[in-house]
């Protein structure tokens, strides 16, 4: 099917690092190194000459102040000419998806032919800030003209100024944390604790299956340790093969200890990881000898009031994307829904069902989702595109959908097509 907006854009290939729980296997690795690793392995797997790449776009949600433009550091890999421009963006948990569609747009417009897009997050390595007062004092001291003035500035420091500030995963506009939002959605949409646990268990079971049969690991470039005697990370390390509903039921809710239902088991964990996708115009893909996995048919973003149901915006984004694709829900052969929380997935599905759409679980998150695989904020959107594209090839499905809920009350949807 021809593209609807300008040139047709192919998803040629995608690679990601293993997704590992924060504080575990990749805890000492910076996000930029994860991103570079994924991009480089993508080049290896596709035998792509770095000279062919026109632009690099990467998403990241919590960037390090030391590497503010992670995309540029990727494009400065020695495998690329130094002249490839690059930028980084933040669409919260849909950042890598956004990077991919931003790449899509440049190719569709004819501004580029080949783009590497992806995302990365190292939640083991979040920036810890100094207090505002300490920062002010340090700035004042650095501007001081004499030693005396400098010392005088330092005398203003009080013990409480030295307490570091860690960024919280909370809405700046409401102060509500992600977990609290999920808790609120569970209550408003009457999502039972058991249903949430069941969805989480499903996520783990399917992800474990996908890992065991190699479908999930096919998209992973094993992480070769950078120190002697460190284990090689071949797969995502949050996927459980031994959990049961009984075990999950024992966990205490985290965000509302008395009446809550959202637990550590039915939420996605803090995760480190990166993903990278090779995009090309269909002409460029052909000229380079690639057989694309899928093509990007449409995408859409929607937003709702963050004070309402923070993670429910996909219910608005998906119909827009379907409409732009010119297809209907029932035409979809595979669906990847980002799993921030089981309560959110089930709320989203409820919203879709309310539109009269039939929910066929057999085609949703067929290798599990973020609850089991993990959720490095900036990288997940890329993972979804890769997982979906590969599985669309395996099953020879014509249309597939990704749906991502994101901080700030945003929802992101993208339709991929096989031919």
């Amino acid at each position, binding site marked *: 099917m021809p593209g609807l907006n300008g040139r047709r854009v192919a998803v040629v290939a995608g690679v990601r690092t293993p997704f590992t729980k924060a504080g575990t296997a990749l805890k000492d690795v910076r996000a930029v190194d994860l991103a570079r690793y994924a991009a480089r*392995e993508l080049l*290896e*797997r596709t035998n792509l000459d770095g000279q062919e790449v026109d632009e690099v776009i990467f998403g990241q949600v919590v960037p390090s102040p030391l590497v503010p433009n992670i995309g540029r550091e990727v494009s400065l890999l*020695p495998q690329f000419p130094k002249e490839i421009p690059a930028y980084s963006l933040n669409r919260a948990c849909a950042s890598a998806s956004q990077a991919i569609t931003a790449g899509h747009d440049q190719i569709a417009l004819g501004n580029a032919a080949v783009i590497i897009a992806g995302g990365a997050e190292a939640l083991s390595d979040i920036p810890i800030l100094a207090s505002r007062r300490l920062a002010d004092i340090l700035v004042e001291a650095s501007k001081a003209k004499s030693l005396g003035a400098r010392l005088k500035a330092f005398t203003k420091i009080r013990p409480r100024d030295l307490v570091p500030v860690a960024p919280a995963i909370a809405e700046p506009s409401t102060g509500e944390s992600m977990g609290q939002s999920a808790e609120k959605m569970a209550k408003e949409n009457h999502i039972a604790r058991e249903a949430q646990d069941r969805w989480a268990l499903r996520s783990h079971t399917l992800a474990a299956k996908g890992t065991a049969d190699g479908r999930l690991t096919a998209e992973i470039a094993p992480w070769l340790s950078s*120190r002697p005697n460190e284990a090689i990370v071949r797969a995502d390390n949050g996927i459980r093969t031994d959990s049961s509903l009984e075990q999950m039921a024992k966990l205490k809710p985290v965000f509302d200890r008395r009446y809550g239902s959202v637990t550590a088991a039915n939420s996605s964990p803090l995760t480190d990881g990166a993903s990278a996708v090779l995009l090309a115009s269909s002409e460029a893909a052909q000229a380079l000898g690639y057989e694309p996995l899928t093509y990007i048919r449409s995408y859409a973003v929607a937003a709702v009031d963050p004070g309402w149901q923070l993670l429910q915006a996909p219910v608005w984004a998906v119909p827009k994307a379907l409409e732009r694709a010119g297809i209907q829900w029932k035409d979809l052969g595979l669906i990847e829904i980002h799993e921030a929380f089981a309560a959110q997935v089930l709320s989203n599905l409820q919203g879709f069902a309310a539109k009269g759409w039939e929910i066929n679980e057999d085609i949703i998150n067929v290798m599990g989702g973020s609850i089991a695989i993990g959720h490095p904020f900036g990288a997940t959107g890329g993972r979804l595109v890769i997982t979906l594209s590969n599985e669309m090839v395996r099953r020879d499905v014509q249309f597939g959908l990704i749906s991502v809920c994101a901080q700030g009350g945003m929802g992101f949807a993208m339709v991929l097509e096989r031919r």
Partner: protein
Amino acid sequence: MATLASPTRTAPAVTWEISDGIAVVVLDLQGHPVNVISRAVKDEFIACFAALADDARVRAIAFLSGKPDNFIAGADIEEFVRLGSASEAERLAADGQEMLERIARFPKPVVVGIHGSCLGGGLEFALACHYRVATDHSRTQIGLPEVQLGILPAAGGCQRLPRLIGARAALDMILAGKVERAAKAFRLGIVDELVAPPILNEITVRAAQKMAGGWRPKRKRPGGFVGFLLDGNPLGRRIVFRAAKKQVLERTAGHYPAPLAALEAVEHGMKYGITEGLKREAQLFGQLAVTDVSRKLVQIFFATNALKKDPGVQNAPPAARVTRLGIVGSGFMGSGIAGTAVAQAEVDVRMKDADLGRVAQGVLAARAILDDRLKRRRISKYEYARLVALLSGGDTYAGFGRAELTIEAVFEDLAVKQQVLREAEGVLPADGVFASNTSTIPITRIAEAAKDPERVIGMHFFSPVAKMPLLEVIPGARTTPQTISTAVAFGRRMGKTVIVVRDSPGFWVNRILAPYANEVGHLLADGASIDEIDSMAVRFGFPVGPVTLLDEVGLDVALKVAGVMQEAYGDHIVPAPGPGVGALVKAGRLGRKSGRGFYFYKDGKKRGVDENAYELLGAHPNGGPRPADILQRLVLGMVNEAARALGEGVVRNPRDGDIGAIFGFGFPPFRGGPLRYADDLGAERVVSDLERLAERHGVRFAPCEVLREQAGRGTKFYS
């Protein structure tokens, strides 16, 4: 020192312009890539400075090079080679000294701006000037490498450098012939100022203007208080000189006279003043210039330079540009090749091994070569980060589709290597070259498995790859010239000296090592002791003796090579009686890597002969063979094999053969290589010695046809 191919010149090398009281003098030797100081250039210098002395408009001089990345590479080595006698050489040195004395005492300040290599006579010139500005560029290399050619810095270098930076630091540079980067030279105080390349000329002229106005640099006493304690007084200096002498003797084992002579020149000058020092320096230069050692070192210098330009095959098509290197097998050799390729050639390297754990280890081992460079400040942390990103690996052939060159370094087994070749051919680009790193397997045999044997070649690296300077490139029967030139060119980019060798068992290095190593068994069986054998070889000038060498290589590897060589050359490489090295290998003693071989090792250090080794070998040291006999059996066996192999065309010419022996396993450079050594002894004598050895110890010593013929005709390898 550098070479100057043709002495005929038309355009002047030294030109100048005067503006604002400053004469900007530019040295640009027409028709040559680098500046060197020859007699003709010297004359131009003298004329130039004479004119500037008289020119009232000129108040100071700024001296620059007209070459893009070179200041002065040194004195003209061709001129040096033509020197016939010690007195002639002494006169040459004295002339140079006189010219530089004139510059040092020049009434107007002379400032030099240095960018690019500033070596030997170039640095001596700069030292005679009054202020030195240098660029902080990696191309700016500063040093006095003379002793590496068996001579000493004789244009005042032995006098001015210690006076500028202290005796200790000066000896450090002069005695080892070390070349330093600009930053180090600045730290040492050799240059006064370090600037970015674009402003070099401007700053040099500005310094000349300042000096014209009467300003003089204040230089601190070199080395601070410790420097004063050691260098600043006669007693401290005596300690410094004594320590330096001891170190030189340890390093040269008395085989190389130049460092000792340089030491003497420095010491003499510090004791009796610069005039006496210069006189002594020139005398010693005269003596050294005509020594056999210097001649040999210069020959090696020329041979290595010639090899750098030799494409390795006649009418060579241009080498393919390698931007990406695939390596199959991430063991010790594979990772050594990978790390060296990244560090030297800065190519993208992809390693592949069957097991990811081995790949990870291999990538780490390759990275260790970069770690080492970072630690020694050869590269910055930013360069390090860039280079590290060139290294990666996996357990599939992903990424090999773009590798212009793939080198396999898998287990030394024909079937395994052929299997790898078949796999690789399936993924390599259509014009990709496949090289096998093997020491014993014929390339033509490996290539039998290829669809495209034209692109299969041997690249025999030596271990450890990062340190060993030689590479043997071995074309198979059907290898194309372009494949050869690609392998040769890439080896060179890896910093190796490359010789092209015929595809035959042992190639060149292992071939001529075989009788040498093999003789160890015979000597032990005849009652020689392990340390006696080694010490004789060291006394001859080898860096280590043959027994230590076997331990270093690994006895299992040595045994395997020995088997191949005995099978191929059974008529003269015959196993010694008794259980031999095999008994040691069976007992799990594999040499250094297992902590025990002929010697035993602790914490990575050799701790002495392991007496149990004799028992396993069934040998009993009884002082049997005489020391001179031991040496002859070791060396003449090797010389005989080298002559025979050269006769078979294993190497293209004696030059390649000698360079291979020197760089491959440390044949004493001052003896010029086994073939040059045979020339020096004379074929007649070599043949008669071999015949005597053959009579006493067996036909393995029977002189080869090549030597007999030379003895008969009175010819030599080098005419």
